[in-house]
């Protein structure tokens, strides 16, 4: 990453949060219109968590994410065109139309998968951290997971392995208060996911997930610790998901109480904007960022719409390194014109 000054870094955080929000707002709209197939799990309300965490990483550090996968790659620095194309199932998509909304994973930005089996990224992150250690590189691997995934064994196996081998891993639990529609309080024993760190003899840190600076600071400390060979940290970002588990499903999956308004009132992007303005950043500069990102999103959508769908043969690519043979009866009846 090119060196950026303090002010630029702050604007970059704002830029990335705006990019996530606007990208998803557009995605939600065209999903409602039927242009995006499948389910769409949005990250709105959680932008400070992803951006704060990723801003503490280097470009060559690794990251494993979740099925709520739009925010993480953008937070890590991905460009929007391949992400939007993926949502539309196009061949130019970041996963060539094989992953879709739940798996927007950009390996060029150090992502090692946005996995939709919740918690399954834990062992992968531990393994990537092990790989970096064995290769003598000072890279770290950060694993995002949700409060729902905090009850999955895979996360605990990954944390235990990272702790016992002192691997350069950081486990970031994005506690958005719901696992699908089940409140965290009725699914996760104990007051805080971060408390579970004590069981592994590693630091457990709770941070305000609506404050991008606070998240960045907490993760940076964990990254420094990891690079110094002192092992993993568990960080819990207390945040909030605005939408239902998946949007446009036509059902109100999450009965929300008055807390909904309280959380929306602490919108991470609005909070940060106010902080920047009070610190002397010109409103016009922030508006310019917002407009530039609107253009980026529009450009990404045009690119996605103009892109071709994958050819049918590509369904047989990437099972293995070599393409699978296509069964004759399937090929004969496949809709190759699609």
């Amino acid at each position, binding site marked *: 990453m090119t060196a950026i000054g303090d002010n630029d870094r702050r604007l970059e955080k704002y830029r990335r949060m705006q990019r996530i929000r606007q990208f998803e707002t557009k995605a939600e709209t065209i999903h409602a219109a039927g242009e995006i197939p499948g389910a769409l799990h949005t990250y709105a309300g959680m932008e400070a968590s992803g951006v704060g965490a990723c801003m503490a990483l280097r470009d060559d550090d*690794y990251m*494993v994410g979740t099925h709520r996968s739009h925010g993480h790659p953008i937070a890590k620095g991905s460009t929007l065109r391949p992400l939007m194309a993926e949502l539309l199932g196009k061949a130019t*998509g*970041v*996963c*060539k*139309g*094989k*992953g879709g909304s739940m*798996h927007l*994973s*950009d*390996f060029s930005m150090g992502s*090692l*998968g946005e*996995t939709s*089996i919740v918690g*399954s990224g*834990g*062992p*992968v*992150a*531990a*393994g*990537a*951290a*092990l*790989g*970096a*250690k*064995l*290769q003598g590189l000072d890279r770290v*691997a950060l694993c995002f997971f949700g409060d729902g995934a905090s009850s999955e*064994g*895979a996360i605990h*196996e*990954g944390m*235990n*392995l990272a702790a*016992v*081998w002192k691997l350069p891993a950081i486990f970031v639990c994005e506690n958005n208060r719901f696992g699908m529609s089940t409140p965290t309080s009725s699914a996760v024993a104990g007051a805080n996911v971060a408390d579970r760190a004590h069981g592994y003899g590693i630091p457990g840190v709770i941070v305000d997930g609506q404050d991008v600076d606070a998240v960045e600071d907490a993760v940076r400390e964990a990254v420094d610790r990891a690079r110094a060979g002192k092992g993993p940290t568990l960080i819990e970002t207390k945040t909030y998901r605005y939408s239902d588990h998946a949007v446009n499903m036509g059902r109100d999956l999450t009965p929300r109480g008055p807390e909904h308004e309280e959380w929306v009132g602490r919108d991470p992007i609005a909070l940060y904007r106010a902080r920047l303005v009070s610190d002397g950043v010109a409103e016009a500069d922030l508006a310019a960022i917002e407009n530039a990102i609107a253009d980026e999103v529009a450009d990404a959508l045009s690119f996605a719409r103009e892109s071709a769908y994958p050819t049918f043969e590509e369904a047989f*690519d*990437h*099972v*293995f*390194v070599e393409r*699978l043979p296509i069964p004759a009866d399937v090929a004969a009846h496949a809709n190759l014109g699609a």
Partner: protein
Amino acid sequence: MARITFLEAIYQAQAEELERDPAVFMMGEDIRCNVFGTTTGFVERFGEERIRDTPISENGFIGAAGGAAMVGMRPIVDATLSSFLYPAMDQICSIIAKSRYIYGGQARLPLVIRSCMFYGNSNAAQHSDRPYPMFMNMPGLKIIAPSDAADMKGLLKAAIRDDDPVMCFEDGTCWMNKAEVPDDPDFVVPIGKGDIKREGTDITVIAIAGGVNVALKAAKQLQGEGISVEVIDPRTLVPLDRELILKSVRKTGRAICVDPANRTCSAASEIAATIVEEAFDALRSPVVRITTPDTHLPFSPHIEKPLYPSVERIVDAARRLVGAVQYQSA
């Protein structure tokens, strides 16, 4: 060439590949001590960083092998017993098998998952599984199941050098069998190529893993009765060398599939279906499966041993297929 055991072949394959490629490393439960002897002295030879004893945490360390592979390492995971793969189904199926596909080819997962099929020795149902058919049903996993020391060494070396995830099922009934094995450090057996273990003209017996040795004994006995048996060992179950199998069945017109796995959806079932679909015109008799029935394995040897494919069951089926006795549907 030296005459070595199946276990020694595993040891040699790993040692040679660890020596050859610094990206290769090993991890698993208790491999420093290693009850089976396939990693003896490895810590002293390759160091603690590359030879790692893991927590008892199969989903964790098998998944970690996936993560390490994604960043350029070539892990060999020793999962000890095949039954221990079940706790790791999440990582094997959702991460290791699918990551390359779901991320559009961005991920590469060169790793080997070794496990022993430890059956036939009174260890009861939870220690006696032969679960390769379950993994055959999951795209994205190459599967090897060799039956002799030479194939074991050559296939394991090929697996370690392969850029795809490979599951290596090591049949415990083959452990002490010896074979002449090339010393050449670049001796590999290609993944996906079967082998004719014995040539014959009357019946093709396609046998899997330890079933091959049972089939060879049966073939010898049948030869004395004037029945000529060709024994095919696919060696690799994914990808399966269908052409070799079909060519043999087209020659003999009869097929028996011998598979130590449970019957339903076994490797034998897949092979039998392939033969019926692709070589029906060449068949002179029904295709027969000799498998382990769909029950769990009991502790008592008195009732365990008769469940597996045996020389007697193969001989009996062969006699029926050539018309030496009236065919009766199982």
